[in-house]
């Protein structure tokens, strides 16, 4: 039952808010396990039986609200469940000692509320419902980003929150325009209605603008590096692997399910493509010149998000449906492999900080000797980000390059080619400093077994997902509730 994926995290959140602090983490871990199991179960059902559409409250849309679970939702749900489970496991030990211990009681209710919000976002089938869920996600994510309580993280959290709120308001205005044009809030009814004229043009612009603010696409990327690098390690992993993917998911839903006003979308998609290519180059360059590990990883997120937006011009310029499908699959692959690799990197960075006390790249000498497992994790996740075979990142970038070349849009190829080189450069910059041997270095602290393992498992998954490419493509191509050229399938 897909509803369980909403009910479990919310019940666990309430429970963990009411009970005493020391039991909260075990509630959180149990809930994470249940969510993982029920999302695997749901995946099996969708895979074999096809998409599901459920009404809530006993009312049919457009009067009531529905939930829509298709291949795209299930892929995002699984990504969230996997990363979420590993992060929960990691957090139990991360928040158990030192100055992090006092954050423990606050982390769990917020994280579970955020998880519930993300799961309900993936099932969303009503545009106003999407707004409420987005707000739930923004507030809990901003509160998590401020968990450290130091001045720089508070500032970063508020900067993020102001942008997220401005994005929400723009999105709400867009909902008003869609409602004015189509007289409905249900996505399927909106998709079936006539869409033309300036009203729809404004709606597409407002919705896309509001959502790219939250997704941190250039030029709205400036809030991301401080917010993601100042937060505690598990929170950084959640924010960059899941929260920005949540708003990206909504962009995909709107662009491929709801809108079909071809002309307005064509010009907007060009803008998105230019922003995407700029993001890839600018983000990688910034990552290369940073000197703190978490800042490098955060700027790397800015650049990897750019790849996702190259999808949009490809969808409107290539006429061949086969290559459209290829570009679409590449984009989702990139989302998954970036989510897994980035979560692994942030968790590994958390290990390094606990061990060395800082994340300055100069102070990371000889960690290859003292923390071999964490260094290995950094290397594996780096391979996936660079897009070397057989990683998931390789599959994504290979398919992306192929569809760029067949579409004849050569300017877009700058991103994967030059971006890949720059990515390799900053990954080597991280790795090379870990192998510098330094006998006189300060005493390194030991890292818990589970903290090293959960980061490693995520990195391994981002490499190994390449071997499950067929199943993912099946979910993406045969279990869609919509047609790639716009609108729902009957």
């Amino acid at each position, binding site marked *: 039952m897909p509803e369980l994926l909403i009910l479990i995290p919310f019940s666990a959140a309430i429970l963990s808010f009411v009970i005493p602090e020391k039991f909260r983490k075990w509630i959180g871990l149990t809930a994470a396990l249940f969510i993982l199991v029920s999302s695997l179960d749901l995946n099996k059902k969708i895979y074999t039986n096809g998409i599901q559409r459920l009404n809530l409250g006993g009312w049919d849309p457009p009067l009531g609200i529905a939930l829509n679970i298709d291949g795209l939702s299930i892929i995002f749900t699984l990504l969230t469940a996997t990363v979420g489970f590993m992060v929960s496991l990691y957090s139990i030990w991360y928040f158990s000692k030192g100055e992090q211990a006092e954050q423990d009681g606050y982390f769990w209710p917020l994280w579970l509320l955020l998880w519930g919000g993300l799961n309900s976002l993936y099932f969303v089938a009503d545009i106003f419902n999407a707004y409420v869920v987005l707000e739930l996600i923004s507030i809990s994510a901003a509160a998590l980003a401020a968990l450290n309580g130091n001045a720089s993280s508070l500032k970063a959290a508020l900067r993020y929150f102001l942008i997220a709120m401005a994005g929400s*308001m723009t999105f709400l205005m867009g909902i*008003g325009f869609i409602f004015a044009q189509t007289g409905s809030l249900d996505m399927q009814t909106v998709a079936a209605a006539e869409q033309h004229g300036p009203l729809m043009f404004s709606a597409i612009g407002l919705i896309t603008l509001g959502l790219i603010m939250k997704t941190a696409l250039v030029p709205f990327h400036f809030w991301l590096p401080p917010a993601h690098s100042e937060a505690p390690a598990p929170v950084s992993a959640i924010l960059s692997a899941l929260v920005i993917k949540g708003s990206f998911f909504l962009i995909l839903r709107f662009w491929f399910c709801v809108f079909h006003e071809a002309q307005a979308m064509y010009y907007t998609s060009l803008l998105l493509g230019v922003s995407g290519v700029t993001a890839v180059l600018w983000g990688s360059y910034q990552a290369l010149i940073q000197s703190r590990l978490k800042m490098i990883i955060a700027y790397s997120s800015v650049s990897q998000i750019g790849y996702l937006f190259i999808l949009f011009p490809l969808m409107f310029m290539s006429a061949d449906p086969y290559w459209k499908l290829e570009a679409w699959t590449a984009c989702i692959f990139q989302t998954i492999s970036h989510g897994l690799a980035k979560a692994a990197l942030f968790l590994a960075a958390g290990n390094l900080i606990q061990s060395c006390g800082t994340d300055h790249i100069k102070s990371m000498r000889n960690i290859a000797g003292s923390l071999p497992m964490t260094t290995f994790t950094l290397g594996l996740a780096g391979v996936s980000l660079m897009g070397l075979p057989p990683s998931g990142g390789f599959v994504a970038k290979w398919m992306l390059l192929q569809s760029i070349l067949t579409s004849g849009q050569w300017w877009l190829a700058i991103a994967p080619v030059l971006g890949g080189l720059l990515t390799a450069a900053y990954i080597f910059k991280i790795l090379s400093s870990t192998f510098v041997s330094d006998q006189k270095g300060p005493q390194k602290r030991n890292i818990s077994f589970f903290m090293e393992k959960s980061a490693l498992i995520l990195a391994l998954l981002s490499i190994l997902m390449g071997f499950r490419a067929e199943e993912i493509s099946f979910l993406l191509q045969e279990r869609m509730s919509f047609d790639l050229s716009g609108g729902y399938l009957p």
Partner: protein
Amino acid sequence: MTTFAIYSITAVVLFCVGLMGLAVHPNLLRKIVCLNIMAGGAFLFLISLAYNSQGPEMDPVPQAMVLTGIVVAVSATSFALCLTRMIKERTGQCHLEGSDKDKDN
């Protein structure tokens, strides 16, 4: 129809004024006020739609949406104000350095 036109245009203007204020004001308190102006604009647009609907009565759905939106807006405002207070306590400042510079490129 004319009443509707007056209010929907006003709503759009209020929304844009709020957005502009958010971008130009360095002070955090004023940024939060500007967000609330934007919200007011978006709500006014929805209500003017409800007023304009040609049904047997006024469309209750946008009204319910605005009621939900007002609760969400006051929650978000109070959370943002709490962050502002903490920043003031920690740093003695009431703005985010660099944010006004980054805002409009």
